[in-house]
């Protein structure tokens, strides 16, 4: 019973709410879509927090997604022992970067009065949830070795079953509680996504790579 609530209902609810609310927020309150950078108020500590955090968490998230979307490719990748080692070590290093970076960001928010002044309740909630989540992830990586491998046979089939709308929880229910918490934490972050500054994630401006460098907008021409 609890297993289906946590590993079936909760993920579905989290994802549905995230998508719906993000769309609603985008359509009704686009002004609020912002990364809400506080660099203007404090720049130095931000560098030591924000850079390791982002450069740590983005590749790690990417690896999680890659293994989920292309499990075959991932399987081939880690088939070689050397590559597996490299992946595990890099992953662990990046994970440590996220923990340290995020911890620094939290300390910065507490200690700098200017930054504190622009920190909302949602910011605190998000920071704590994220810190717990990356800490859990690091712990899992440290204690339960070869996650790059067993992830393929536990979380991936479970997530894919959810995606196929044929939920099968048996892949994950027997896992250690730390791992389970990390999985649930992931969906908690997804749930928080539309209600926090996390929305800036989907507005990552990739189009900057190819758009014309100058932007001119004509009122009349817009209509062709």
């Amino acid at each position, binding site marked *: 019973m609890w297993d289906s609530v946590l590993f079936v209902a909760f993920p579905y609810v989290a994802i549905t709410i995230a998508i719906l609310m993000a769309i609603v927020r985008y359509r009704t309150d686009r002004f609020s879509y*912002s990364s809400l950078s506080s660099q203007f108020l404090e720049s130095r500590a931000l560098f030591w927090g924000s850079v390791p955090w982002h450069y740590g968490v983005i590749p790690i998230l990417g690896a999680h997604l890659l293994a989920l979307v292309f499990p075959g490719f991932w399987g081939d990748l880690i088939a070689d022992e050397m590559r597996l080692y490299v992946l595990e070590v890099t992953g662990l290093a990046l994970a440590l970067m996220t923990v340290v970076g995020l911890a620094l960001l939290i300390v910065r928010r507490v200690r700098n009065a200017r930054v504190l*002044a622009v920190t909302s309740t949602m910011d605190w909630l998000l920071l704590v949830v994220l810190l717990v989540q990356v800490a859990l992830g690091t712990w899992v990586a440290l204690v339960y070795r070869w996650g790059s491998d067993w992830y393929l046979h536990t979380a991936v089939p479970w997530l894919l079953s959810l995606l196929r709308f044929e939920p099968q929880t048996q892949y994950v229910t027997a896992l250690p509680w730390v791992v389970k918490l990390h999985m649930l934490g992931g969906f908690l972050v997804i749930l928080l996504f539309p209600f926090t500054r996390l929305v800036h994630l989907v507005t990552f401006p990739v189009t900057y790579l190819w*758009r014309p460098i100058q932007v001119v907008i004509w*009122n009349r021409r817009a209509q062709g």
Partner: protein
Amino acid sequence: MDVRAQVSMVFHLDKCIGCHTCSVACKNIWTDRKGTEYMWWNNVETKPGTGYPTVWEDQEKYKGGWTKNERGLSLKLHGRVGGLSNLFHNPYLPTVDDYYEPWTYDYEHLFNAPEGDDQPTARAVSMITGKPMEIEAGPNWDDDYGGSPIYAENDPNLDALTEEERAQLTEMERVVFFYLPRICNHCLNPGCVAACPAGSVYKRGEDGIVLLSQEKCRAWRMCVSGCPYKKTYYNWSTGKSEKCILCYPRLESGQAPACFHSCVGRIRYLGVLLYDASRIEATAAVPDRDLVDAHRAIIQDPRDPQVIAAARANGVSDAMIDAAQKSPVYRFVKQWRLALPLHAEFRTLPMLFYVPPMLPVLAKVKDGRYDNADAASTSLAPLLSSLERARMPLRYMAKLLSAGNEEVIAASYRKLIAVRIYMRSKTASGISDAEVQEALRVGETTPEEVEAIFQLTAKPTFEERFVVPPLGREAAIEAMRDPLEQKREGGFGFRKAPVRGA
């Protein structure tokens, strides 16, 4: 030819009295909100001086504007990939301390303080943290050379001068400075637009006003760095960048922008220029010494039938073309070649031009008297030669207004001097016709032109200073929605309070 219209500006620096009325008019309308307290879309700084934000002209520090290289032009700030990789921390972003921490005073304490031996005081309270603070900088901290050993001496433009010249500037009784009012230049090749990864900053096609979409801004804050004039600002409260909007809501109903309208010295002119947009890149990429000439060349003659036809083909309205033909800006910039762009070497092609200030000629106090001995012996010579004897070294002015090309700014000055001598000869006696003719010749001008310059400089009416048609928003939007409905419902801006997101 791709002819577009640009609402452009001229500030006549000789007329600025440094009263800051313009800044206050702007602040009262646009930036009296939380998060914008520190912003001065219009500011007036003392030159030489470090300005606002401190040493904004130092692009080694702030990386604003463009650099010329083998491939043409590239942003000083970043390439496309570099821009995205610096999103998490922009190494060149000025922080609030480069401007100043906004504050108010704890006035309530004056009323509520318990009885005591001392008078209660109103302490300064930060408008960011709400906590008591020490005031260490403020708007116009170095106004009129205030604290000049710390501020004015660090003006990056002074690099061009010799030790002796630098010492002269602040020497008692020879002190010299002038005011430099600044707003967004609404450039043809804006650095802010090019730097914004989200594409939220844009130039309006119809009038060239550069705006920043509050709905598209995601606080990547690259515009602040990309603008070499530091005229985009980051609202620390809403998490959105903001900038001077040239009072477009006022322009749309035919009113002059607030800073223009309120200017006490009447130094400000607003008019339409037609320019060839297909030449923007080429113009911005010429060598430094040719920048001003190239900038003038991109501006097209509004009476040339070919230009008019090209403008029409581009949808420029007849009212705009008509305004371009009467444009005071066109006369100052192109026809008379008096007004110059500020720091053309930033290569953004700014569309705000400055008529350089004449400033008093150089003289010393000797035995307690103003020593103008040369003037007495050679009659008018000091007036004629006042360019060579200018208190503000020409090199300094060249660094500011002609990308270092002294010939360009000297030509502008020579004409201004000719105007002075010619007009003086009409009211004061003792100026020989030969002197006047010599001045006109050196200034490359004619009595008719001088009269016209004098008229537009000294006695222009409101209508002569501001020649911009109502921007016809209704015509521009009618394809999208009913103008009447628009007028009734919204005007401009938000229908909800622009509050910070969660």
